[in-house]
């Protein structure tokens, strides 16, 4: 039992999520989209129609945030800060990578043992070909994607992970997350939520509840 918990807590897949800001934010937003509407629905102080309306609104808000974040913020800020880091820092600090995707793959390889890493580097990539010295078409290997410097680094027992580049990418992700979730997504959701709630019939409930309440208030005054 304890061994099982320890295995889960120290698993590589969980560690991959933990070391990536984007996956952390997506996971947190998904949980918010479940938790917040759930707590609204179990609140006994609110009437049923209001509960459903508030829960649907909160769920849609979090879902919009997640969608906006995944489709706009992540690609823009990830690529942007990677390019900025390439301009600002020296090559020995950030290595020689073509894209942020290649760097992410490099980091994954760094987390494996030297033996496994070397095996992966010798694997063929499906559907990608190159011409060899004799002019024949042969499949490209994983190591062909990397520059010779990086292949040399990957053949070391403890390869350089280039923390400055990783930090720059994470910095971009944090700035993007803050901008996306706190500033940009609320604006988009504001435009998107009310028509959807209206289409689902929640706005009608709210309006009818409001009109009945207002008529009751008028009656009381009379």
């Amino acid at each position, binding site marked *: 039992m304890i061994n099982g918990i320890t295995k889960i807590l120290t698993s590589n897949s969980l560690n991959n999520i933990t070391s990536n800001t984007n996956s952390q934010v997506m996971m947190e937003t998904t949980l918010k989209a479940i938790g917040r509407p759930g*707590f609204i629905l179990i609140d006994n102080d609110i009437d049923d129609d209001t509960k459903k309306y508030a829960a649907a609104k909160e769920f849609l808000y979090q879902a919009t945030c997640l969608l906006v974040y995944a489709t706009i913020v992540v690609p823009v800020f990830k690529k942007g800060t990677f390019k900025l880091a390439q301009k600002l820092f020296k090559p020995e600090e950030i290595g020689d990578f073509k894209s942020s995707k290649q760097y992410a793959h490099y980091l994954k390889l760094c987390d494996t043992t030297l033996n496994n890493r070397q095996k992966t580097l010798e694997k063929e990539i499906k559907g990608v070909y190159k011409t060899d010295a004799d002019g024949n078409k042969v499949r490209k290997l994983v190591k062909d994607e990397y520059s010779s410097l990086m292949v040399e680094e990957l053949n070391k027992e403890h390869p350089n992970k280039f923390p400055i580049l990783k930090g720059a990418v994470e910095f971009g992700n944090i700035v993007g997350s803050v901008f996306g*979730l706190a500033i940009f997504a609320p604006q988009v959701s504001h435009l998107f939520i009310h028509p959807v709630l209206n289409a689902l019939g929640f706005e009608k409930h709210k309006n009818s509840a409001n009109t009945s309440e207002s008529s009751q208030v008028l009656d009381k005054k009379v």
Partner: protein
Amino acid sequence: MNTTLLDKFRKICLKLGENNKPTYVVMSIAAVKGICRPAFTMMDKKEEPKTKKYTAIREGLTEIIAIPVYWLLGEGSAKLANKFLPEELKAKGAKNCMLIGVCAAALVVIPGLCSLAIKPLMDKFYHNKKGINLEKSDKNLSFIEPKTNPISQNTYSPVKRPSMQTFAGVGPYKSYGMKVGGV
């Protein structure tokens, strides 16, 4: 870029690259949300001022509650992992536990705390110190049925009196209505 600024940026990047805690991003999002969401709500021209104020305070309070909860649960679960995990797994396990703590905060603790704490806090903001639940009292009031035959309106109409200003505007004295004291 300026060298000092670049050095500072390099330091931040190095720190984040070596140890990017899951609490950093969630706390920074909560902090900015705590400022921006109420501000956006207050800028909404379609809502009534009272509703706007209420919603803005509620949103601000939610994020104020969220920031310390994220920190406490994140750091607390990392410390707990450091206590129980073997030495070689501590670094990896502590960080993973921090993420689990943050997730637990987002899923259960923060929504739960908000639904418990926000209502009394909002009552305090709106000076309802006696602890009267306005929503409940309103609900009770809504059960009072309006009378089927409302009180009939008084149909009294004022009697038209004949005007006494027979020579109004004629002569040296003009009439300006009734004056006490003569002039």
